[in-house]
């Protein structure tokens, strides 16, 4: 009957508008990049040649690439890890707050909503070894601060701190929400049993939050793997390539060296990397979720 056919097609009709926008605009570039990665494409001057897997060979033989992979994984792992640990702690603190909740929580969002370009410039100033506040404060305590973003030994640390700062509000707010929704019964029962706060936290709170933790970690990982703005302004990938993540490398290759073929290849590689990492998350997440 017509109505049954219509009923059957309802779910598809509902998702159609959204997917009709998402898939063409976001998946088409994926195919484009995969296609391009088999070509040598110099954007200026235009030169287009089919080179099969040559681009991939060149990239895999380039030690700068492997260094970028290492830096990207290091950077992402540390940023997300610390955002999670610190974020959970701060969320826990904020959860217990009694007054001025609305204000505090809005203020906590500020690093996340500030214009990335401008706030990166401010951080650049903070990290400056001579004129920046961080070293000025250290000088006050008699410590001679290092070169931060100007020293390859500390540059990765500096961009990591700034990136953590910028993204942690998202983590805090999501975890905070999770904490607020926790039911009371397990806690009452635990108190009756005489459990300590530490025990309560690790044996009750964390397990109950498992799903939300996984979601936060997944989104933040995907996002941080591609992080670009802060690193670009702070160090441009330097000094000496010490902060050159894959994102920076892609941008440089495309917009400074005008090499479309190689940058597509790098994009495909980072895509596969993200896919692999999120696949692990996804498999686990789906087990937990009600289907």
């Amino acid at each position, binding site marked *: 009957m017509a109505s049954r056919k219509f009923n059957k097609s309802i779910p598809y009709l509902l998702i159609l508008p959204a997917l009709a926008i998402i898939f063409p605009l976001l*998946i088409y570039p994926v195919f484009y990049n995969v296609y391009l990665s088999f070509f040598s494409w110099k954007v200026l001057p235009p030169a287009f040649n089919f080179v099969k897997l040559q681009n991939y060979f060149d990239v895999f033989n380039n030690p700068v690439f492997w260094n970028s992979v290492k830096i990207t994984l290091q950077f992402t792992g540390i940023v997300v890890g610390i955002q999670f640990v610190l974020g959970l702690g701060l969320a826990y603190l904020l959860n217990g707050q009694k007054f001025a909740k609305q204000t505090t*929580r809005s203020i906590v969002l500020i*690093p996340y909503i500030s*214009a990335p370009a401008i706030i990166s410039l*401010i951080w650049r100033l903070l990290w400056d070894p001579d*004129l920046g506040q961080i070293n000025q404060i250290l000088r006050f305590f008699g410590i001679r601060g290092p070169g931060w973003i100007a020293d390859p030994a500390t540059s990765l640390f500096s961009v990591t701190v700034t990136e953590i700062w910028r993204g942690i509000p998202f983590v805090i*707010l999501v975890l*905070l929400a999770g904490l607020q929704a926790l039911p009371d019964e397990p806690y009452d029962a635990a108190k009756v049993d005489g459990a300590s706060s530490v025990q309560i936290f690790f044996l009750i709170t964390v397990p*109950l939050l498992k799903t939300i933790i996984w979601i936060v970690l997944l989104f933040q990982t*995907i996002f941080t793997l591609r992080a670009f703005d802060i690193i670009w302004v702070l160090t441009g990938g330097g000094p000496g390539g010490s902060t050159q993540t894959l994102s920076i490398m892609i941008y440089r290759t495309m917009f400074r060296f005008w090499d479309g073929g190689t940058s597509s290849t790098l994009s495909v590689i980072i895509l596969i990397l993200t896919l692999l990492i999120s696949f692990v998350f996804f498999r686990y997440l789906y087990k937990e979720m009600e289907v």
Partner: protein
Amino acid sequence: MSRKTEGIIIILVVLFIAPVIQMVLMSFKQPLDLFSTFLFFKPTGANYVDLFSRLNLTYFFKNSIIIASGTAVLSVILGAVAAYSFARYNFPMRKFLLFMVLFSRMLPPVAGVVPLFLVMRRLGFTDTYGGIILLYTAFQTPFVIWMMRGFFLSIPRELEEAAVIDGCSRLTAFLRITLPLSRPGLAATSIFAFTLSWNEFLFALIFTGTNTKTIPVAVPELIGEMGIFWGQICAAGTLAVLPIFIFSFLAQKQLISGLTFGAVKG
């Protein structure tokens, strides 16, 4: 929570946003004070005045607001509708499509610039509000779908079933029962969608032109060829934060309880 802990929280929060405080302070400083003093200086409003005359900021504000609001509205509507389908219906390829939605966000943005530009240019969508809102909606909707799906899953089916038994159509049940219960979720995702569109730079640069230039694109103009106009750029940064800050302050209550429903129950 003790007074002391509350006090510590306040100190932590202030320290946390110290860089932003720095930016606000610098927006009121005279050039000679910019790098010397932190707190003690004679303030001036000259940077703000200069910003508006030099940069025509009101125009970019208008564009940013139009684009960000349009994106927030469109992505939340489309995403919520799609999320409902993913939550309530069981249809073939559901899991696959859901994964593809996530997958679509995995390509680094910079890799999408050239192909999308060539297509949009040919279609005449560049430098139009519609074109850019469409683009940003594509970026934001996956997140909306995932979050709202969680919300809808946590609202018991029985509520809707009961309404249908009472004579409502499914649509009315959705509008009258499900949506209001998930209003916090809608508020939350719209804030994030608005924020991300407000601050987005790379695509705004390439796809906007004179008619639709947004604030992030205008900001590099304050980086002169011979140095940064620090006072003005800090003023721009301060002004750019205000709309979202006010918006999220007002939506705070919704925001927290909103995220609750969605994320925990899965």
